[in-house]
């Protein structure tokens, strides 16, 4: 019998997507990769794989190239109630649809990487019902990233590998119990970049 605490910890270890940027070779064909490279979502094992450009262009039902929109504007804000329904203990979260599981997943960054939990359909509808941009979310490869600053909320629709990049940046710059100033700086920098990128894509 595995104690429930151990069970939860092992399950998190099993289900968390690995942090990107650890691989120096394409995980599909083995070709060497440059620092900035593409990713594909392996929808059956729920992993994000580093891929060379050639492999990233090949789409199958099990391997989806991570492409996606960069969307952000003020009308995309969510309400405090919608945020509360996500039930995350930190001020950042992203939501995506996992096609293999057939459900929405809410994920948020923690000191040890991404933490995931399934999101009840009703809660997703409460969040996305009034937002056509969220209803058109591409399964597995696009996510809605929400950041809370006090009473204000910013939402973005972005490729999911960027979400894991953010998780990775938080994990590597985390120190102490509350993350420390380096984390806050890293997160600010990420969002500044994202806002620029979304502006450029609009």
């Amino acid at each position, binding site marked *: 019998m595995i104690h429930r605490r151990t069970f*939860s910890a092992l399950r998190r270890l099993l289900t968390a997507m690995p942090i990107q940027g650890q691989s120096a070779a394409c*995980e599909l064909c083995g070709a060497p990769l440059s620092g900035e490279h593409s990713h594909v979502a392996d929808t059956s094992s729920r992993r994000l794989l580093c891929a060379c450009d050639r492999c990233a262009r090949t789409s199958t039902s099990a391997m989806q190239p991570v492409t996606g929109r960069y969307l952000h504007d003020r009308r995309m804000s969510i309400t405090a109630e919608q945020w509360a329904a996500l039930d995350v*203990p930190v001020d950042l979260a992203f939501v995506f649809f996992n096609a293999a599981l057939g459900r929405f997943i809410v994920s948020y960054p923690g000191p040890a990487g991404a933490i995931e939990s399934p999101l009840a359909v009703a809660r997703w509808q409460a969040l996305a019902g009034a937002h056509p941009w969220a209803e058109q979310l591409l399964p597995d490869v696009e996510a809605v990233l929400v950041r809370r600053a006090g009473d204000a909320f910013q939402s973005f629709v972005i490729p999911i590998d960027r979400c894991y990049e953010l998780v990775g940046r938080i994990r590597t710059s985390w120190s102490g119990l509350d993350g420390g100033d380096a984390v806050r700086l890293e997160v600010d920098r990420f969002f500044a970049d994202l806002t620029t990128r979304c502006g450029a894509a609009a």
Partner: protein
Amino acid sequence: MSVDDPVLIAARIDTALASLEKSGETGSGQEARELARSIMALYGEGLSRVIEIARVSSDAPVLERLVGDPLIASLLALHGLHPESVEERVQRALAAMRPALPAGVDVNLVSAVDGHAVVHVGCPGAASVRHGDLRRALTRAIQEAAPEIESIRFDGLHDDLIQIMRPGKPLAASPLA
């Protein structure tokens, strides 16, 4: 070839172990090795029980005997391989408890969805039962049968919501913004 192909998994293990060896006796390297050893020991113990069960001849079907072992059952549940659904296991755990409940008390599973179970406890005012004891006993039984359950609500008992464990809550729920 799937990424879960054992050959590819072995290759990933090789890479990770090689970089772990380079990390020498530093704190995190040592912790990672200790973690890997402990996880292997857990699965090794599970495998040895599988072999033991397969060796012993019995009339009961093998699958039934396998899931009857608490360690094997929880490893299967961990990987989503348990042949019985969470709901079925909780139902069975409650059924097993019924004969031992005080007179007049009955328990029924309302739902078991997304790691959250709702249990209705029929507890007439006259029944002499300590709600705390009953809640603890039910929680333990449900957890053993279905470790996937992370919170349980007992309708009909005082203080009805038990949050067993918030999955993955960081030590400090600090604002990252």
